[in-house]
């Protein structure tokens, strides 16, 4: 299966527990990704091929109102319950989206996370997949994204690599 994909982000390992995380068993979230000997910095809450988000980039969610806005987008199909179970007082959510894609076969997931500057800056590396040209794919418009939970306090900046040529940055 892996050979069928062109891994857009070179050199990033796929988080091991994403493999085998089939939705039929309800496994859509990951274990926290953390730097060696440090506290958990980020965990993948869920992924979807249909987030309804049309532009590639980041959307930072720290209130239930904002989360609700994201969950009411057209053409969206996400694990809403898992997102609502996140305690926004303790963790905020970062939507990393690839924007609209013309077919199935695209996805983005959390590769790794590490902190800098005593935990003030969080670096997230994303693994992005796209079908190899010539692969047979479903002809449905998709909007892949991944939702990552990050600590609600202490962070001043989140830098996301692997989605665009340059880092995407959220300053908090």
């Amino acid at each position: 299966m892996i050979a069928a994909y062109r891994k857009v982000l070179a050199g990033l390992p796929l988080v091991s527990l994403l493999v085998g995380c089939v939705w039929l068993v309800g496994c859509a979230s990951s274990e926290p990704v953390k730097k060696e000997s440090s506290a958990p910095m980020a965990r993948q809450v869920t992924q979807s091929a249909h987030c309804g988000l049309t532009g590639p980039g980041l959307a930072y969610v720290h209130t239930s109102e904002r989360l609700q806005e994201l969950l009411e987008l057209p053409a969206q199909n996400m694990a809403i319950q898992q997102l609502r179970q996140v305690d926004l007082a303790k963790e905020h959510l970062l939507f990393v989206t690839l924007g609209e894609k013309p077919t199935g076969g695209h996805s983005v997931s959390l590769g790794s996370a590490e902190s800098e500057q005593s935990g003030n800056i969080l670096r997230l590396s994303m693994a992005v997949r796209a079908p190899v040209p010539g692969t047979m794919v479903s002809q449905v418009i998709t909007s892949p994204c991944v939702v990552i939970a990050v600590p609600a306090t202490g962070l001043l900046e989140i830098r996301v690599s692997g989605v665009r040529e340059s880092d995407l940055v959220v300053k908090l």
Partner: protein
Amino acid sequence: MTANSRAATVFRYSVLAVVASLYGCGGSSGGSEPASANIALSGIIDIETGTRVDADDADTLALSASPLGSPQLLPQEFILAGYVSISDGTYPDRDEFPGNNYPADPVDTFSMTLREGQNVYLQPFSTNQGFSPLILSLLSGSRVIETVATNNQVDPIRVSLPDTETAGAYTLQVRAVGAAPMLYILSTSAADSAHAMAFEWPDHDFVDAEAIVVLKAYKDSVSMRSTMPLHLMEPKQELASGVWLMKAPSQMARSSQAQSKESTLAWIRTLNRRPEIASATPNYKMRAMQTPLDEPLYNSPSVGQQWHYELLNAPIAWQIAPGGGSGVTLAVMDTGLFGAPGNWHSELNANVVQPLPEGTDFVSEEFDNDGVPGPDNNPSDPGNVVGSGVSHGTHVAGTIAAAVNGAGGAGIAYKSSLLPVRVLGEGGTGSSADLLAALRWVAGPSDGEPLAEIVNLSLGGLPFLQQLQDAISYGTSRGIVFVAAAGNSASTLASYPAAFDKVFAVSAVDGAGVLASYSNYGDWIDVAAPGGDASRDGNADGRSDLVSSSSAALVNGTVQETYIGLQGTSMAAPHVSAVFALMKSLNPALNYEQLNNMLMTGKLTCGSETCPKSTELGWGLLDAGKSALAAAGATVSDFLTASPSIVSLSTEGELSASVSLSVYGSAPGDIIIESVSVVAPWLRLDSAPVSGDSGTDFGISVTLLPEALEAGISERTNIVVEYRSDELRRLEIPVIGQRVTDQQARDAGRHFVLLVDPEPTGDRYTTVAQTSAVAENGQYQFSFLPDDGEMPRMLNEVPPGDYILVAGTDLDNDGLICHAGEACAEYPVAGLREEITIRQGDPVTGVRMTTSYSRPSISAATPGVLPRPAFIGYRLIQQQPESGEDNGGTAPKTIGAER
């Protein structure tokens, strides 16, 4: 559209389209905006519905205008921000800047139409000069009806048109009575209006003036006629021994449809009291006779979303082919189905072929994720390992063959047989080898029958492969019809399998029948069908034009069946496959060659017209009714059909519509009109044929009554035509009505657009660049230029860096925008600021946000949820008297004002 969905829409078009551009995407989100050449940042600010602004606020008066001498006209529903001051004066100095002047404007006068009981609210806001009372008066001419004064700067006041007054034109006055200038927001509240009337649909429709009667002590029909109270009922048909279909006496009043229903029920209650009768029940319209029109997803005013069936003229096809495609087997080569053999998605289970033939899963190990690597006999869709999916194959299959069961929606060929074939694995991807194996398999053994008559291929992306072409040619020679999605690359590049010879290549259209923005096109396209377009609302029903069908979603940790809207040529192809199934149910001999000939001779597309072939739509948008008629040959009774098949009326579009009724049939003859009725209070039937009229062509005209609709909310109803051809028949013509506030009239006042340093100094933000714009067609357009390094730097030039983008009005002319009582927009959403990065030579375009008088800090129920305790607004760049810079000779407050 609900408030939430409006918010979501705003977010969709503002936040995320713009997120793309923030990081160098550079694409535009659509709409008109300044050209990107030599632009650092540009975008559009939308204005919330119903927004108006006082035409002589302090900011306007500061630009040498005089207070208005005549009342300002307002719509019936609005929200307006205004300014009044009994005298002119000067605000106190702020920081190092001298205070601005504020002008005198002691009274604002407005003219508007009020309904009986309608309320108008005023919310006062102090300027930095402190609080002064305001007086709100309601007048009829010079006669004062009601006057209310504010007691403090917190509580709103209200005037209301009393019941003793009649609806009509009235005058509102806001008067300053204290020394300090004041801001206010004046608004109506649609929620208080008394026009909300819901029309409740019956749970189960029944035939007027008919009942199914079970008789006691029944012997035979002769004795029945001698013993039964025949003055109460007329025998129509013996259904079983002692069970009769009875008609009501002809004298039963039938002055309207509603009364007819009620009188039928009253008559049945009478029958049930008779000692000779065991039971009498309405003659319910049987489930078996129902079509997808009866499904909630189609006909519910709140959830009706299957616009795509009307666009396809499917309702008339269901009349011509009442079997719903029964007896025709369609293979959906896709991701499989949600569920398991014998327990598929409840919409599909009844129609899935049982037992399934062996070998329905062709996904090879490389792509497989169903836990059983490689091909097997189970076409269940396991979802995706990486990222949740939407059960693509389930969605496609639902458009074809979801059953009519009183829940959800139904497919076009709702009684056809569904053969799920799994050829796409993880993420909806697969290999040409797997497809080739499936195509050979479905053609059946050389000494046997094909396993399906129609094959739907909502997949693509393959190059030309001779082996696949050969497999398709072979299948076609065996009578199989292949239909495939044209692809979503918005290009003319041929996508296979759609572009193979003997495959119907289907492009996608939106709700208006226009080629979807993503759809492939080219001379290899054969026909078009609805595929949806989330970015459009082509049919003006207030929803994105997505194609709704069966799906599955992760809920509470488990995947559960559901419905979802998707877009793509994947969604268009099954419409064509299903219509072909209806056709083959009428004429099983139809094969590719015959269908293609029908298509090329205009028998399947474009309604009453014949379409020339185009690169976008091929031979045109498929017309299911026309197709069914073409397939039926000489066996069709006369049916009435409507053109347009759905009517959309809105205050920003057509207020009236004419509907042509014509007879569909092999040899159309006269039909007799029984009744034409409309029950929604917001729709007026202007003209229609009356009972007893006969002919082959009729006209109906209707008019929207917008005052009976809530602003911004789409309503849906039907024009019901009952007529008699070979039997009593019924045609329902869906009507969507929408009262849209005139967007072009929206105006929140001149907006200053600022780029401010994200790092505040204390509690103040420093504005780095500034421009301004006035509303045009309900929007503000703005742009900033890159800093060219030349001094003095213009106000609207911006150096590279990270900024917060905000915009707002300065109605009180105090040099600050975005404080209470003024309009404010923050990128991407007010209260949720995010930074924008400006880079040299990398213009950021397509930025979109929305301005409003309301904001989270005001609307939040609990103070402190979004605290900005020391926030006083964003400061406009002031002239620095000591700097000597002239900023290009233009006063800061007039920069961009000409826009």
